[in-house]
């Protein structure tokens, strides 16, 4: 089977204006994936399914991943020559900026006809708040139907072109998206105080990292 780099070359040859790149996967598993922009993911998927060399007719797994906003600290060093003639002064300037987070959908594709795989493609939304729409790949592989509904339900990614996009695991009137990293459980859900809750709290406090400096009260 072709490597992800070869597949990427062929895809770019076929769709020159698409945003497709290979995302290296560090670590021993070495399952590299193709990062595809949302505008071109539908045609890339159809190409991968119909191409005679690949024939990826089986979409095995559709996963959603939540990458929250990240605060990145940039350190810029500047050298200022000393007017008095001594060694130049090196000053560090730290600027913080927030890298916006996004929601990512990962598709694992296999081929039943040619018995190879996996080829992994990923798409990302623009941010986590309002631009959360991605094209649905259910018209290409029906296997994505229930799994995309689950990503919609648990992460909040809206799939345009999905035949029946509604919640699947949570009930229909539910408001939040449980698998997001910043999910907070609702206040009003049925909860019965048990000794276990106390145990977990006490245990967490016992294993929490001790605050540095100062004697413990």
């Amino acid at each position, binding site marked *: 089977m072709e490597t992800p780099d070869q597949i990427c070359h062929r895809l770019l040859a076929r769709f020159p204006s698409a945003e497709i790149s290979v995302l290296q996967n560090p670590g*021993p598993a070495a399952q590299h994936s193709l990062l595809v922009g949302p505008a071109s993911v539908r045609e890339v998927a159809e190409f991968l399914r119909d191409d005679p060399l690949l024939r990826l007719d089986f979409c095995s797994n559709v*996963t959603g991943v939540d990458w929250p906003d990240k605060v990145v600290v940039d350190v810029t060093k500047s050298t200022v020559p000393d007017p008095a003639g001594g060694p130049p002064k090196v000053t560090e300037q730290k600027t913080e900026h927030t890298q916006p987070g996004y929601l990512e959908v990962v598709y*694992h594709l296999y081929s039943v006809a040619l018995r190879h795989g996996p080829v992994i493609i990923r798409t990302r939304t623009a941010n986590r708040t309002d631009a959360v729409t991605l094209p649905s790949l259910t018209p290409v592989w029906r296997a994505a*139907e229930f799994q995309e509904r689950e990503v919609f339900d*648990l992460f909040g990614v809206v799939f345009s072109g999905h*035949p029946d996009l*509604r919640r699947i695991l949570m009930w229909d009137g539910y408001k939040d998206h449980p698998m997001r990293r910043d999910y907070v459980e609702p206040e009003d859900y049925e909860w019965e105080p048990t000794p276990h809750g106390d145990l977990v709290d006490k245990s967490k406090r016992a294993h929490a990292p001790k605050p540095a400096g100062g004697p413990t009260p």
Partner: protein
Amino acid sequence: MSLTGDSPLFPSGGAHVRAVNDEFHGDLLEVSMGPHHPSTHGVFRMIVTLDGERIVKLKPVLGYLHRNHEKIGEGTSYLASMPYTDRLDYLNAMTNNWAYALSVERLGGLAVPERAEYLRIILAELSRLQNHVCLAGFLLQDTGASGTPLMYAFRERETILDLFESLSGSRMMCNYQRFGGCRVDASPEWLGQVSTLVDGFGAFLDEFEQLITGNEILMSRTQGIGVLKAADAVAAGITGPLLRAAGVGYDIRKVDGYGLYNRFNFRVPLGAHGDTYDRYMVRILEMRESITILQQALRDIPTGPIMDPKAKLRGFRPKPGESYGRIEGPKGEIGFYLISDGSANPYRYRVRPPSFVNLTVLEDLCLGHTIADSVVILGSIDIVLGEVDR
């Protein structure tokens, strides 16, 4: 209530609803089957729209057993998630454990010694035997054979569960595989007990088949019911015996060749028609192939260590990266997708559940059949709600 798509339950417009709904033809009846139902294999709900007794529309409603297992996985360490994987497909703890261990071993670059691989294969095939025999029993129970084949099947299943208990300590929640091998070594007495079971299982299958396979009532209730075509099955992501009964010869044990399966000589039974009877027969034949695999494994199992010496029990922190590992579980392809950020807990922990994806075709299989057939078709798809809802 309106059946033409105004209700929030059917936003897609109910494409299969009969256009005529007049005095002569009568109303369409909507029945909610479940979640408390003896035949839905767990807390599973189907909203079935009936024209007399024929099904015109079927929508599965899931989520009654949703425990957000994936979020629990993000909050616990890799080792502590292992007992939780037992509870996914709670009939086949051994294969769930293996799929998770395979994925983590790929993530962390761990090697599994040979004896551990043979033990894993023995336990996975035993798990396949007890799952298929459980399914055969429940399928016949659903057709109305009120308990007799079920109890005969469970008599054999009990011997297998006793074997699991004497090895791992628990009948179903085994928590047996570890990253880099197995937790406890199997004694020669235990292997002897497996050998006795395997030698007697063929005779049990012969008696079971004599009991039920040629039964005219079963044949008329399952042949031609719920036909699944091969192309539809592949497009819908179906795996496992459901796919093979449709005629597609895709068995991950042969395709991926994980865990020394390449050394074993076994056939993969395929169905010709894709109906419920084929699904039942494919499982019976798979049981016979599992017996062959078990006999070869018991003959060839080497001595040696059962854990990778580099594997750590506590404080396992794989390098950042991701991996997807899948095995041919008794219900289909069970896979685990893990993203590691270098810490003790996974960043993203995803289970690819076979029963969940296999339910995609439930509606298509049931359309046009009677409501009694829907129970039989659901039984032949073989779902376990622990896996569907996680």
